[in-house]
């Protein structure tokens, strides 16, 4: 933990898609029920990286355990919402829109972008690293750059050589410039095309400005986090980054799959923060990890099925490290259809991020008033 920074706060959301197994991520190693429920899909006592006498990390999370011990990781227990549908799509929608009762179409971060940049002054206020826009970032009239691959991002990227592409792009710009009397639809199209070009022009400078001694691994999450680091280090005014990692839907072959995923995630996250640190740019970045649900308490022999309550992690120098909330009771009678019952609403966690970290009004973002777990240094 360090002194609060005067730079604008930045959030990096890492979505663990598919339903991350809470119990094998943050292992309740001293609870004998854990081994009763998980005869096949468990982390052996000797492999658990002990954080406290009660909990420990998955062995693939050693880099995160180091960060935890430095006080830069908050483990937020038992997060979810009532009546989990245990459906990937539905549950992810709920996390994205903050609408557990009805189908929402607007994302919580989309509403955050609107507060940060109400006049659309920066077309790269939010950057989504992936092929399509996550619903979390969707809101009417909010531009978000969706970047699949930063090295190859932009309009008409299939055209080569560079000289030819420049010629075509130059013409594109002329074709999309305002046309008097063309009507609102053509004008909107023109402006959108120019915005797309501008966003690409802005983001394209990032890789060329970047140099670092950190060598990221050759994994999908490492590539995404490296792209995020490049954009952040280029000081383009991006405040919200979003990316995902998956699939955590480990119905079968869980031990090996889960290990690979956490190994790639932990290494990439450590490299990402080292990279930012090296450039003195880590002090205004908070990373947030969540999954749409945790998994069933009992294993199925080779994996685990869809569950309810899960765990969130917040990482960074502005995070007040430690545990928040309670590990949900694992007693037979306390389970709901064999699942851990969440006792912390995910919108509470978002409220802390929106208000204490991003300095925004959380009520319209999460759709109500929720008590905050105080896991940020700026929480009071």
């Amino acid at each position, binding site marked *: 933990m360090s002194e609060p920074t005067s730079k604008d706060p930045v959030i990096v959301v890492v979505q663990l898609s598919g339903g991350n197994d809470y119990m094998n991520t943050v292992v309740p190693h001293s609870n004998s029920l854990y081994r009763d429920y998980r005869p096949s899909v468990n982390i052996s006592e000797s492999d658990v990286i002990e954080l406290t006498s009660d909990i420990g990390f998955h062995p693939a999370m050693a880099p995160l355990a180091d960060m935890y011990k430095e006080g830069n990781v908050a483990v937020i227990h038992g997060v979810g919402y009532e009546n989990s549908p245990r459906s990937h799509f539905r549950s992810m929608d709920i996390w994205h829109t903050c609408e557990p009762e009805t189908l929402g*179409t607007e994302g919580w971060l989309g509403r955050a972008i609107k507060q940060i940049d109400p006049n659309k002054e920066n077309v790269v206020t939010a950057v989504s690293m992936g092929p399509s826009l996550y619903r979390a970032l969707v809101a009417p009239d909010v531009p978000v750059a969706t970047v699949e691959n930063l090295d190859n991002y932009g309009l008409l990227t299939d055209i080569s050589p560079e000289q030819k592409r420049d010629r075509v792009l130059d013409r594109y710009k002329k*074709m999309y410039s305002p*046309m008097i009397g063309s009507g609102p639809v053509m004008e909107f199209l023109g402006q959108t095309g120019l915005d797309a070009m501008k966003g*690409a022009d802005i983001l394209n400078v990032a890789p060329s400005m970047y140099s670092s001694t950190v060598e990221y691994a050759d994994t999908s999450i490492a590539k995404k986090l490296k792209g995020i680091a490049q954009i952040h280090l280029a000081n383009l005014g991006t405040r919200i980054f979003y990316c995902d990692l998956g699939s955590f839907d480990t119905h079968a072959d869980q031990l090996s799959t889960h290990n690979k995923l956490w190994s790639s995630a932990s290494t990439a996250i450590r490299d990402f923060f080292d990279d930012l640190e090296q450039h003195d740019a880590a002090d205004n970045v908070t990373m947030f990890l969540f999954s749409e649900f945790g998994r069933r308490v009992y294993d199925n022999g080779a994996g685990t099925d869809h569950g309810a309550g899960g765990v969130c992690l917040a990482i960074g120098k502005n995070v007040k490290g430690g545990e928040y909330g309670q590990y949900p009771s694992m007693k037979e009678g306390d389970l709901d259809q064999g699942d851990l019952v969440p006792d912390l609403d995910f919108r509470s966690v978002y409220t802390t991020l929106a208000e204490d970290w991003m300095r925004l009004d959380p009520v319209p973002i999460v759709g109500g008033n929720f008590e905050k777990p105080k896991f940020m240094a700026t929480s009071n």
Partner: protein
Amino acid sequence: MVSTTTNTEISLMAHLMRRAGFGASRNELEERRGKGYEETVEELLNPSNQTPVDIYEFLRYYPMWWKPGTMGGLGQAPWVWTMINTESPLQEKLCIFYHNIFATGVAKVDHYDEIQDMIDMFREKGLGHYKDILLEVAKSPAMIYWLDNNENHADSINENWGRELLELFTMGVGNYTEEDVQECSRAFTGWTLEHKLPRFHMGRWDWEFKFVEDDHDYGQKEFLGHKGNFDGEEVIDIILSKPATAAFIARHLYNFFVEDEPQVPAWSVVPPNNPGAVEFLAKELMDSDYHMETVLRKLFNSDFFKEAQFSRVKNPTEVVVSTLRLVGDSSLPGPDILDWTGQIVYMGQDLLNPPSVEGWHSGIEWINSGTLMKRTNFMSEMISDYSRPGVKSIIDQVSRSASKPEEVVNACLDVMGPLEIAEKTHSELLEHVSSQGDFDWQSSGVTRTLELLQLIVATREYQFA
């Protein structure tokens, strides 16, 4: 606007094929012109005369897609492949039309199979009577679960289905009261689905419609001014007897096939762009007992349809499917099919997973900087692939008739549409080709024409159908 052709017959045929299908190559348009416009409309309205797509050809390559169940995405790939290969494109267009009205998604249903069953039903019955479609939808387990009719009980109603039936599927806001919503819901009590078995790691069993007599409210209802012991089917009959219903469906038809309109939530306050056309379609619906084939025949042969060229923004499915049909060589269910299906998703239309029961907002709402980039890049990459027969054919046709820059620009615009583009766009295209000097088919002609085609698909005008 600049139009590169005086050939109104070809322009009109191209318009029909863009709207009632996924576009057509110039060769196909010429062939159809030989048959005639009305004859082509008849062909489109009679899909049973065409060889249906053999979905098992797809499934041989992608057996996991036979029952995609709880697959984590892209369960719609077989449907996309069907659209690329169908000889009856209007049938698939109607599937999209109905899917957008009766918008049901895996976001809640969490099972592709039941929603795919709905699409198959639209394919089979889409040209029939709207009543039959409504009845099928009311009994679709996907819809029942999506709108909670399995929670609609004789002793405690759940209004979700009853309300959307009136608000989004038939009449529109302002044509019924809250009491009507409740009475309508009572009539559908006991319309439920077979209990789902506990989930296990292979997904779950198929659902089926089930009527539970003990859970049906047989009492008297007062609905839209009628009194009786109505059940669901009788309620549907009453709904269809109301002119407001015909006007509402007419507006859906107009918005999808004719011209971009304001979106559904605005319909109770914003009048149609063309009230006369909507009234005409509404009357045809009433007169034909909502026989969709009859109404679509009138629609495609009407003046207001023929005059509405390029007045709709293409939806993402149209962008991808029509591009693939144009460039050709996309019939084999190779590895690209998943990427193509994904492209439609990236452009904002995750088929079988609409954003809400209201379906996708269309028209200009398809466009944002991310989706416009995806559209442009996809079309540009495909149209410049000279190894594809459709592209080669375009170049052959252009090279036969054009040798100067201006001729090349006009010939490309003609073969690609014929397209109508703004004066300024036209002069930019011309400037682009002219500035690179004289045109020579023996040397750089083909490359330069491919570059021009890339610019044409990147124009604002090309976003319209």
